[in-house]
Every structure is written in structure tokens, then in C-alpha cells.
């Protein structure tokens, strides 16, 4: 088990990076050159193959990672859990922004306007703002224990909005389509199904890759600060 952990730690990135790169570029190729154009929406519908995975495999997954990391940090005070939670929040913001950019581009074609205060859109925006607040808090308030605990509480409480986003459209209606939940039509051709699956797979790997890189970076930064302080006290380095 220790050996497996060591192998993943040493070679995980070397394996994950090329797989994610190939899959992402492969998905772009498949979606644009193999998947047929949707009859009513035309080429704009292809936003769907990136918009939905960015929301589900990016934003929701990043937020879930942030939730578990934060909860574990509050329970155990582990630096690693805190770094993972912070990385999860950063991924949630990055992919959430992708959703907020690609969604209105689709919306202007389908609805005639970029934005509407629809239940799902509004709750999604609220969630994104929660994770932006988390990232800003961590970036500008230093790495003290109180700040970490406050951010962890935000990471736990922020996750409460996620199921609300998902069920908002079925509960309160609105204009946002329900393509992935049975209604709203869309994936009539099997190649469309493969396209969306590829999208989900590549965004899941991208989320894993980004979380991995950023959490390792946060841990290394925290550890370097600690070791440099120790080295200064021992007289190994000079101020």
C-alpha cells in the first residue's frame, strides 16, 4: 500500500498529464468532426459537450473535493486536507467560469439573450460566488489557523447549495433545459452520447490533474516556509 502510494506520488502526474491532454484534444476532434450537428441549434449546440461536463465533472467535482477536504481539515487539522480543499475550490472557480462563459453563448442563440434570472442560473452563480469568496479569502488573508478554519467552514457550508442547483430546474422550472435529466431532448444520435461521455471523462481527468498540481503546490509552499524558518534558526541560510 505504501509502495502504491509512493508510485502514485512519483509517477502519477507523468501518467495523468499525457492521458488528460490526449483525451481533451481527442474530445475536441470527436465533438467537432464526428458528432453530427443538431438540427435546430446547429453548431452552437456543440457548446453543450463542454458546458455540461465543465459544470458536473468540473465545478461540482471541485466543490465536492473542497467539501471533503474542508470537513477533514476541521476534524483533524491536516495541512494536506487544507491544501486539497483549497485546490478543489480553485478548480470549482476555474471550471465554474467556463460554465458561465459557455452558457450565455448558448443562451443567446436559444433564448435571444445572454442571461436570465432563472432558478438554476441564479443558484449556480451564487455557488460560484461562494467559491470565489473562498479563493479570495485564502489569497489575501494569509495562512493562519483562524483563516484556514473560516475558509474550511465556508467550504463545508458552500456545498449545501450544490444539490439546490441540480434540482432547481425540476423544482422551480425556468428556461434552462433538462437534457441530461430525460426531458428537453438532444442526444438522439449515438455519436452525441459518445461525445458527451468523452466530455465528462476528459473534464474529470482535468479536475483530478488540476487538483493534484495545485494541492501539491500549496503543500510545498507551506512546507518550504516552515523549513526555511527552521533553516534560518539553525543558521543554514541567511535572511
Amino acid at each position: 500500500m505504501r509502495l502504491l502510494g509512493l508510485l502514485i506520488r512519483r509517477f502519477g502526474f507523468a501518467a495523468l498529464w499525457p492521458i488528460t491532454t490526449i483525451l481533451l484534444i481527442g474530445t475536441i476532434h470527436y465533438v467537432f468532426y464526428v458528432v453530427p450537428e443538431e438540427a435546430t441549434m446547429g453548431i452552437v449546440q456543440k457548446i453543450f459537450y463542454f458546458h455540461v461536463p465543465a459544470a458536473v465533472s468540473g465545478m461540482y467535482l471541485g466543490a465536492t473535493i473542497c467539501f471533503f477536504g474542508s470537513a477533514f481539515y476541521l476534524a483533524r487539522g491536516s495541512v494536506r486536507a487544507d491544501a486539497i480543499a483549497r485546490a478543489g475550490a480553485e478548480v470549482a472557480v476555474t471550471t465554474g467560469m467556463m460554465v458561465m462563459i459557455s452558457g450565455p453563448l448558448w443562451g443567446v442563440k436559444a433564448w435571444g439573450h445572454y442571461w436570465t434570472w432563472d432558478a438554476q442560473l441564479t443558484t449556480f452563480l451564487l455557488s460560484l460566488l461562494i467559491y470565489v469568496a473562498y479563493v479570495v479569502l485564502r489569497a489575501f488573508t494569509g495562512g493562519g489557523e483562524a483563516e484556514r478554519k473560516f475558509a474550511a467552514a465556508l467550504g463545508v457550508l458552500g456545498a449545501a447549495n450544490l444539490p439546490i442547483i441540480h434540482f432547481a430546474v425540476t423544482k422551480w422550472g425556468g428556461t434552462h433545459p433538462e437534457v441530461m435529466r430525460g426531458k428537453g431532448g438532444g442526444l438522439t444520435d449515438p455519436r452525441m452520447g459518445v461525445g458527451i461521455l468523452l466530455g465528462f471523462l476528459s473534464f474529470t481527468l482535468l479536475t483530478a490533474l488540476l487538483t493534484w498540481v495545485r494541492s501539491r503546490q500549496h503543500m510545498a509552499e507551506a512546507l518550504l516556509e516552515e523549513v526555511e524558518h527552521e533553516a534560518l534558526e539553525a543558521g543554514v541560510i541567511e535572511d
Partner: protein
Amino acid sequence: MQTTTTTTDDNGFHAAPTGGETQSGSHLLIEAYAAIWLCVLVFVLVLWRRTREMESRIAVLRDAIKAKKKDA
């Protein structure tokens, strides 16, 4: 004197009046999109290398501290 032709639809891209379209615009758009993603992934690679450098510095400092304590 050279004249330029204008169409009623001025919102789209048009081929230069002196020559035809040499490459498909939609293909170029897709290639640009793929290139943006590649840039993002290369940036991730750069971040990873920086992290590894930081980890190497941590290891060097730890060894130096250990050696210093041993000497003392």
C-alpha cells in the same frame, strides 16, 4: 483604383476580395480552440515543474539542517 465590395451582412467574416478562401474558417476556429487547451495544459506542466523545484529545495534544506545539527 481598387474598389472594395461590401455586402448587406457586415457581421460575418469575408474572404479578401482579391482572392478566394484558402482554408476553412471553421477548421481554423477548431484548431485555435484546441491550441488554447494545449496552452492551458502546458501551463499546468510548468506549474508542476515549479512545484518539483520547490520540493527539491525543501529536501536540500532539510539535509543541510540535519548536517548542521550533526556537526553541532
